[in-house]
């Protein structure tokens, strides 16, 4: 397992775990970030990411990207 932020642009990866337990985690889940979901990074900007999840593009900051493990 490694944080999503270490993954390369364009590579398909599967979410293994999302750490933490707060309303942000729930919000991420509503947006499609759930364990077992296949996602890919569209672009990186200094640690901030644009992620393709369930055919929508979600922008995440670096700290949040580090909470998603693949």
């Amino acid at each position: 397992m490694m944080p999503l932020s270490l993954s390369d642009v364009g590579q398909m990866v599967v979410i293994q775990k999302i750490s933490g337990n707060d309303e942000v985690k729930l919000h991420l889940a509503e947006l499609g970030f759930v364990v077992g979901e296949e996602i890919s990074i569209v672009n990186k900007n200094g640690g901030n990411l644009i992620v393709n999840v369930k055919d929508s593009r979600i922008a995440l900051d670096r700290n949040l990207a580090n909470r998603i493990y693949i």
Partner: protein
Amino acid sequence: MGIKIALAGNPNSGKTTLFNDLTGSRQYVGNWPGVTVEKKEGKLKGAEYKDVVIQDLPGIYSLSPYTLEEVVSRTYLVTEKPDAIINIVDGTNIERNLYLTTQLLELNIPMVVALNMMDLVRKNGDTVNVKALSEALGCEVVELSALKGEGTDALIKRAVDAAKAGKTSQSREVLSGNVKAAVDKIAEIIGSASDSKFLRFNAIKAFERDEKAIEGLNLSSSQKDQIEKVIAETEKSMDDDSESIITNERYNYITGVTAKAVKKGRAKGELSVSDKIDRIVTNRVLGLPIFAVVMFLIYAIAMGGWSVSIGTAATDFTNDVIFGEWVPGFFDALLGVFGVVEGSVLYGLIQDGIVAGVGAVIGFVPQMLVLFLLLAILEDIGYMARVAFVMDRIFRQFGLSGKAFIPCLVATGCGVPGVMASRTIENERDRKMTLMTTTFMPCGAKLPIIGLIAGAVFGGSPWIAASAYFIGIGSIVLSGIILKKFKAFAGIPAPFVMELPAYHIPSVSGVLRATWERGWSFIKRAGSVIVISSVIIWFLSAFGTVNGHFGLVDNLFEDESIVTESYINELADRMDVPAEDVNAMDASLLASVGNGVSFVFKPLGFGNWKPTVATVTGLVAKEEVVGTFGVLYNYDDSEEELGEEGEGIWPRVAEDYTPIAAFSFMIFNLLCAPCFAAIGAIKREMNNAKWTWAAIGYMTGWAYVLALIVYQLGGLFVGEVAFGIGTVVGAIFLAALLYLLFRKGYQATEADKNLNAVKANA
């Protein structure tokens, strides 16, 4: 009896587009999540539906609100219960959108799913089997393309039928195995405490430990304990928290549904055109320069002094020709026909009051329209959300979220929607801080002020407009750094999560409509508020006491027996102007009132009664600052000069102000308390009188300190202001500012870190 139908769906799924189509209203539409922050009601078009009301709601991802505008939707759906729901599902993004659908179905309200953006779905090569989808969801599904108006008739017929029949969808089982058993058990425990219609919904909410839902049920403590036991057991056996368990169950169910009904044309993870654009636009290196160029181009085209600056060209035409010759000429002729002679009260009221005041404002409408048009295009393309993303990396270093940038960008059009856009900010402290600083941005109504100062004093230099913009952004960033060091605002900003909508080519009609709607509201204001305040300003400036005689100051000034040399000298002394510059208006009521307060602005370099009055009238509407100038500098009564309002007053304005004083005046008026409309919006969003006053006080204080530093220290530097006590005060202010910027400040404790706006306002 009326029928209420609510539009519910994910942000940016096209609810407002459909709402406008169904009701004929013109609510604002934009291509970024969070455009609609309030619910809007409208009557359905068509004679057969005259008792049907449509309710547009802010977009939501689920019935558990994450940001403030989502609370509005949840409250409406759960407690006010519409007769039917139209659930708009973005067809290009079905899986994520159906998440909300599964929750809405549990509400047991008649519902129709509108599968929107079908034109794009076909273009992407995807196919959706509507019949299979409808079968799998247990509710009706209608294909729709709200933007093109396809499928709306069929949709509304089904929705109205569903509302009339009151038939709810056949529930399909979303949950499975252990989870279903647990929720069933909880439903049993809750029993008669819940309305049987909402038992299932409440049981799931209780399983998720949703405090609001549990509170509404008034359960006994033994019931609560039993429920908690069931939850704990299930959590243990599934090794996950209850909320995640339900989320996973929903997505598992949805995967099953889409497997039956949806075929994707594109392989998963394949780059779309939007993605390719994003690779460049949100690039780590290019992102910021691209944004800077975009903003510079917008201001250059709207306000610059080049050949591409169509806004400036149109404004010059309006000022020189329409309000320079045509309108005053027309009124001259018209008044002549009715025998109203120059010098009479009525002539003065119309030409010097209304035409001069309104003309000074209307002249800037072309520039505003160009600015609004360009901003509308920017919003419609889908660039706004990208800007927030690109700026987040920078803003976060100062303790701000990139999301705070969207209200700022919206505020470059108008401060009121800018203030309201702050609802999408999750962290309560950041939201308050954004409310306090958003109106620093130069809004459309402040353009005339910039235009006047740039034109009259700086020879139309485009750098004045650009500097106004950077002073706005700079003030927001510096305020962010300073305020974050106080305990009330300390803490890291909420994590940045934001959906980026796909880029699309802006629709011509949509962009033109948005431009016109905003521009029209300015023109309407020019015809109402500005007329009234110009008339009041004119009256107060036309009447006064000259050497003990009350009346029209212009006429009294012509009487040599009243206006003696000693009186002129005394007046010049009182008004602080050279004796040869004294004119009739200096004896007016307005001059004496303004003069009484003007000492406040003396340290800023414009302690004269005219700019003082203009600054105060700016509270009514910022463009009225220029309207007031139009009236007050239109004093020369020689025949040919009368009526040249726009640029006609520029030489006189230039005479009265040194460049540094004019710049200081501009800074103060750009940054100080916004107009009453924006103050009202801040008050509504703060929902607290103390905070509202704090916001107004902070903005005015900031404006004063900055203008003083610029005038005193900048003036000393360029040799316009002599060294004196003002220099010392300016230096002290600057030192204090630097101290506040660089001090260590309050360190946030763990508890301070994330104060959710939804919880804070519950």
